[in-house]
C-alpha cells in the first residue's frame, strides 16, 4: 500500500470496487465510507511526509483520523482516548489507519453517546481497542468494511480481531509490534 503512484491508485480503485460490489448498501453511505478509507490512507502519507521518517507515530495518526471522522458528525458524542506512544512502519501503518477508521467509524455510527479508544502495549503486542455503549453486535456492522478489516488485521498486521458485547460493542485488534 506504499509505493509507486499506479500502485497507490490501484489500491484506491480496489477499495472503491470492493464497496461497489457490496449488496444492499445505501449509495450515499457507501460513498461516504469510501471517502473515509481514502482519507485514512492519505493521513498516513501526511504524517510520513511531515516527519520525513519511515515510521509513523500511531497516537498522532489516530488523533488525526479521529478528528477527521468526528468532523462530519452531529455533535453529542463523548470520546475518550488513551493512546500510548507506539510507532509502526509505513505499510503496516496504512493497514492500521484503515482498520482504525473503519472500527471507529462503526462506533460513531452505531454506538451510543460514549466511544472509547485505547492504544497500548501488552507483552510485546500492540492492542487497539474501540468500545461504545450502543446496542452491541448487529448485522449492520458487517459488510465490506469489516471484511476489509479482517483481511488487513490477518495479512498485513499478522494479528487477530476480536469483536464482543460487553455490553455495548467492543472491537479489539492485537498484533505484534
Amino acid at each position: 500500500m506504499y509505493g509507486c503512484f499506479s500502485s497507490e491508485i490501484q489500491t484506491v480503485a480496489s477499495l472503491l470496487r470492493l464497496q461497489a460490489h457490496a449488496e444492499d448498501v445505501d449509495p450515499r453511505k457507501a460513498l461516504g465510507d469510501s471517502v473515509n478509507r481514502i482519507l485514512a490512507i492519505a493521513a498516513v502519507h501526511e504524517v510520513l511526509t511531515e516527519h520525513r521518517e519511515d515510521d509513523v507515530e500511531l497516537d498522532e495518526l489516530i488523533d488525526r483520523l479521529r478528528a477527521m471522522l468526528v468532523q462530519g458528525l452531529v455533535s453529542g458524542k463523548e470520546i475518550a482516548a488513551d493512546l500510548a506512544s507506539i510507532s509502526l512502519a509505513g505499510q503496516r501503518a496504512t493497514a492500521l489507519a484503515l482498520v482504525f477508521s473503519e472500527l471507529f467509524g462503526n462506533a460513531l455510527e452505531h454506538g451510543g453517546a460514549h466511544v472509547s479508544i485505547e492504544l497500548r502495549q501488552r507483552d510485546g503486542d500492540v492492542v487497539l481497542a474501540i468500545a461504545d455503549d450502543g446496542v452491541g453486535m448487529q448485522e449492520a456492522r458487517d459488510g465490506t468494511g469489516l471484511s476489509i478489516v479482517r483481511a488487513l488485521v490477518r495479512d498485513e498486521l499478522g494479528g487477530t480481531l476480536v469483536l464482543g458485547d460487553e455490553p455495548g460493542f467492543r472491537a479489539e485488534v492485537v498484533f505484534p509490534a
Partner: protein
Amino acid sequence: MTGGKEPSGRILIAEDETIIRLDLRELLERAGFEVCAEARDGEEAVALARTELPDLALLDVKMPRLDGIEAAQRILDERPIPIVMVTAYDEEELVLRAVEAGVFGYLVKPFRESDLLPAIATARARHEELAALREEAESLAEALAARKAIERAKGLLMAREGLAEAEAFARLRKASQISGRPLKVVAEALIATLDA
C-alpha cells in the same frame, strides 16, 4: 473472451497488498473462477502452486522475498501453466524480464474490471499454442529418430547379408509385422544385435 468459452478454472493469486488481493479475488469469483490459493509473496506462490496445482496463476511483479518474475520462472520450471503478470505501468523493464521468463499475459495497474478476462484468455491461448508446438516438436524429433534407426538397420542388413535396399526394408517390415512391434523398435533391436 476469445474462444467463447465460459471462464472457469482454479486460479492462484499472488499479491502482497491485501486490498488489491481482495479485489482480485472478488473479480475472479464473480467471473466464475475458483480462487484456490492466495499468496502474499513469491515464495508462498511457488509453494502453493506445488500443493494446490492451479490451472492458472496471477502474480504481482513486485512482491517481498521473491519477485513475481522469479516466482513465475520457478512455477514454469516445475509445471507449465498459463501465467498473468500484474505490473505497474512504469515497470516496462520488468515486463521484458517477464517475457523472457515465459509469462503469457499482462494486467497493468491500475486495472479495470474489463481488463481481467482478456488478460487471462490471452495467457491461456498462448500457453496452449506453446504446448501444441512443443508436442509437435517432440513428435517430429521422434519421427526423425525412427527414420535414423531404420536407415541404419537397413544399411547393416545390406552390408552383412548382401541385400539390396528394397530387400532389406522388406525384411524389416516383415519382422515388424510378425512381432507386432513398430519398425523403429525392430530396427533398434537389429542394430543392437548386428552392431555389437
